[in-house]
């Protein structure tokens, strides 16, 4: 058998993976190794595979993903801080046939936008909500978020998040289990927690995101909510590879992966 060369392999007919055509040519502004890029790629792949790019409207948050609209070749609105689900609600109510998704971080979705998040889920809007949780405020420089782990050092918890003072007086509070909370609401159809730190995680995450969009397309109601436990290596102050490791060791015990709710039924663990 003749020796096979790289040139033989690198041929158009052998291409098995490239980034989605639904991503623009603009390079992501995200830090090296940031999970936002991976999640963007997955969403673009799913929208491309579903063939709904000409009827999709995305809603970007305030935070690191504020300019997500630069990267997706679909129509986009940039919402006020925390209001993406409210904005998506408006769009979906006006255009029920459009495929509408919101994209938010934990500061946006679980802090300033908690009200919009809870009420959108409680109303059971037929939208897809993507929630990227890295337990910190990324864009503003690493301040404590509601999702910050106990003991985690941030710019506003320089000595570590301490839910209560030693004398029991309330202090920083506890990590907010927003996804569990939303799963309890009757308006959520599909609630799942995923990650993108490994190839296996990415494959699972893509299945979940695809389901979250398919559900929206096939049904008339019920929020399809996908949390992605992600990294913020810059503000966690570690390398991307170390951050992914740290995520598995520290984030996942608090935010375990898997479906929490499917077809309006809570999944018992």
């Amino acid at each position, binding site marked *: 058998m003749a020796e096979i060369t790289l040139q033989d392999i690198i041929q158009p007919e052998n291409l098995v993976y490239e980034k989605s055509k639904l991503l623009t040519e603009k390079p992501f502004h995200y830090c090296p190794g940031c999970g936002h890029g991976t999640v963007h790629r997955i969403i673009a792949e799913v929208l491309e595979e579903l063939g709904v790019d000409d009827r999709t409207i995305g809603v970007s948050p305030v935070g690191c993903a504020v300019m997500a609209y630069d990267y997706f070749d679909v129509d986009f609105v940039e919402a006020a*801080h925390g209001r993406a689900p409210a904005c998506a609600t408006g769009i979906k109510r006006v255009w029920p046939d459009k495929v509408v998704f919101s994209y938010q971080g934990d500061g946006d979705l679980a802090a300033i936008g908690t009200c919009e998040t809870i009420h959108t889920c409680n109303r059971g809007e037929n939208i897809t909500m993507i929630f990227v949780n890295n337990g910190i405020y990324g864009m503003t420089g690493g301040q404590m978020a509601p999702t910050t782990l106990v003991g985690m050092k941030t710019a*506003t918890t*320089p000595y570590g998040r301490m839910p209560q003072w030693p004398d029991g007086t309330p202090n920083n509070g506890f990590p907010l289990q927003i996804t569990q909370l939303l799963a309890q609401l009757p308006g959520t159809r599909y609630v799942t927690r995923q990650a993108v730190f490994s190839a296996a995680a990415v494959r699972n995450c893509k299945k979940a995101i695809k389901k979250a969009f398919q559900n929206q397309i096939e049904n008339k109601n019920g929020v399809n909510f996908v949390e992605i436990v992600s990294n913020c290596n810059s503000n966690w102050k570690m390398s991307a590879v170390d951050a992914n490791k740290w995520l598995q060791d520290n984030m996942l015990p608090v935010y375990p992966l898997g479906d929490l709710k499917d077809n309006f039924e809570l999944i018992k663990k």
Partner: protein
Amino acid sequence: MGELKLMKGNEALAEAAIRCGADAYFGYPITPQSEVIEYLSEQNPYERTGMVVLQSSSPGVCLKQEGLAYIAGAEVPCVFADVVRGGPGLGTIQPSQADYFQNTKGGGNGDYRNIVLAPASVQEMADFVPLGFELAFKYRMAVCILSDGAIGQMMEKVVLPEQKARLTEEEIKAKYPWALTGRKRGTQHRVITSLDLDSARMEEHNRHLQRKYDEVTKNEVRYEMIDCDDAEYVFVAYGSSARIAQKSVQLGRAAGLKVGLLRPITLWPYPTQAIRNLIDKGVKGFLSVELSCGQMIEDVLLACNGRAKAEHFGRVGGIIHTPEEVLEAMKKQIIGE
């Protein structure tokens, strides 16, 4: 002399807050003020003074005004109504016109304007909705219908506008190509945003907005004049105050006073030129009649620019002035005994 230190403004603010014995700070990280909460967290004021620092989010101080600033920046049309009650804060549920500043001067951030329509009747409450939408879509900006508890609660006859069919998606695509309906294949995707970090583009965007506002100012000023042809003294009043002032004009005329009424219908753009024209025709003084402590008077004074006397009269707290006391104020404050 106090302690001399080199600090950032944000830090100095935070430190001063601790030092003046503030009870609490409820913060939210937003560049460029994140240092305030970072500084406070680092300083542990809870231990220093018992000051509580909560890393908590406020849903936003401005609520609707926040959205309006975004709408102005992103140039999205919208109509909203403010049926004003007394303030500040919870104030009272009684009628008021004290949100004049908030709506005509902008309550959100940035250099922007909203068109403000002031209905003085139930009829106008109805009429200004289609007018509002027309203007909102013509200029791609927010239009405020600034009403008050009196106009909002009262019952009157009203001729309603005809039922129009909702625009179809195809009509929307044809009329408003900027509207997001899903990106047509082979065309550029569209984005509705108020954000642009490129300074040159953002300056041009602001200039563009100002040119648009100039255009609105040129084309859309609306007002009504009652008995102003030979008037020497003119009430300026909008909304429910205008209804009262109209009676004051009648009472004044019956008493032989040459009084008239200018009723601004658009509070922004303001009928500045109408006031100047009246001065040119010989009007000597204006009384701004408002259910507030003197807000619109500032626009009347700007219009007068020192060429005619102008003062404010108004009752607040839910009390509505009577035609008699309005006329009395005109006599005392403007005409003189």
